[in-house]
């Protein structure tokens, strides 16, 4: 079946961001349980750098998406399904921005400035405030669970298209 695809830039961004999110998510959970040590501080810094990279890539990805029409969805999909899929994608995009933002807010409120790759000092979004810092930490964590839920749904949907509907939807996200 020869159907339309996303353009190569969109495809590359999709898989690159998916990979980086998997890394940031795993590293985030690993580091949160570590005992305070120089190692923990290092891993925290790396996590932030990966997270900020995702933030920038997603901003670019959204601009790219807004200026390039995606391929039409398979004809076999109901209107409701098309809308639901659009809604889910929208929610994933929002979370991909909100998660790094709350991480950055958490860090600022903790009194720790984010210095991207030890070079670029990002502005503190809020002043030091411990209560606010724990609040953003909680939100950062909850949003991550929400994203995990949506990604599981997303992958299940992709597999359903592939294996049940057999409309080869996955091919749209392959170079």
């Amino acid at each position, binding site marked *: 079946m020869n159907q339309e695809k996303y353009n190569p830039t969109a495809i590359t961004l999709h898989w690159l961001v998916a990979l980086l999110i998997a890394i940031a998510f795993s590293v985030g959970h690993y580091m949160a349980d570590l005992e305070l040590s120089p190692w923990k501080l290092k891993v925290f810094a790396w996590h932030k750098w990966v997270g900020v990279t995702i933030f920038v890539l997603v901003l670019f990805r959204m601009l790219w998406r807004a200026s390039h029409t995606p391929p039409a969805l398979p004809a076999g999909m109901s209107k409701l399904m098309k809308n639901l899929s659009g809604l889910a994608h929208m929610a994933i995009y929002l979370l991909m921005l909100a998660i790094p933002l709350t991480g950055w807010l958490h860090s600022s409120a903790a009194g720790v400035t984010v*210095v991207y790759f030890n070079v670029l*000092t990002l502005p503190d979004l809020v002043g030091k405030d411990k209560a606010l810092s724990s609040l953003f930490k909680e939100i950062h964590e909850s949003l991550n669970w929400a994203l995990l839920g949506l990604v599981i749904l997303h992958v299940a949907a992709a597999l359903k298209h592939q294996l049940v509907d057999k409309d080869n939807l996955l091919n749209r996200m392959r170079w």
Partner: protein
Amino acid sequence: MKYIILSVVLVLAALWSLGEATASGIISDKSSITFVGKQMGAPVEGRFTRFDADIVFTPAKLAQSHARVSIDLSSIDLASDESESEIKGKSWFNVAAFPKAIFESTAFRALGGERFEVSGRLSIKGITRDLVVPMQFHTVAGVQTAEGSLELHRSDFKVGEGVWADPDSVAEAVQVRFKMALKP
């Protein structure tokens, strides 16, 4: 009646000048001790919420001026509860054995205008070092205030030992800022 008013004025004037000469103690909520360190190259701020100071400072009588500041190290406010309990522990401040940091002035020097230089000794964790601290003495909202900043090196006081000695994870230099609002 005239004499009563005159004597009241005189007594008040005497009290006033007495008060000025013996200014001692600070107004806690207008005073602050904050600091900025660096971890993994990123600035981290914190502060001490409990400290006390005995300050007798008269620009015209520097020889009689004196300052002693005592900081309750367990009052440190850092990024998280976890880092606060770590920094109170043995490898950092060891507050159980050394609860306070103490600065005691030895001399004041005028640098012109509102600027002064305070020489003194700072003791942290059982180690005493000589310091020279630049300060500005001026009136902020009607309150005489001494402000300044200095750079400390944590290894001078063995703050952060063992695995924490590595300056790549936590930098050596710590910028300390102080603001002491003197009681009238």
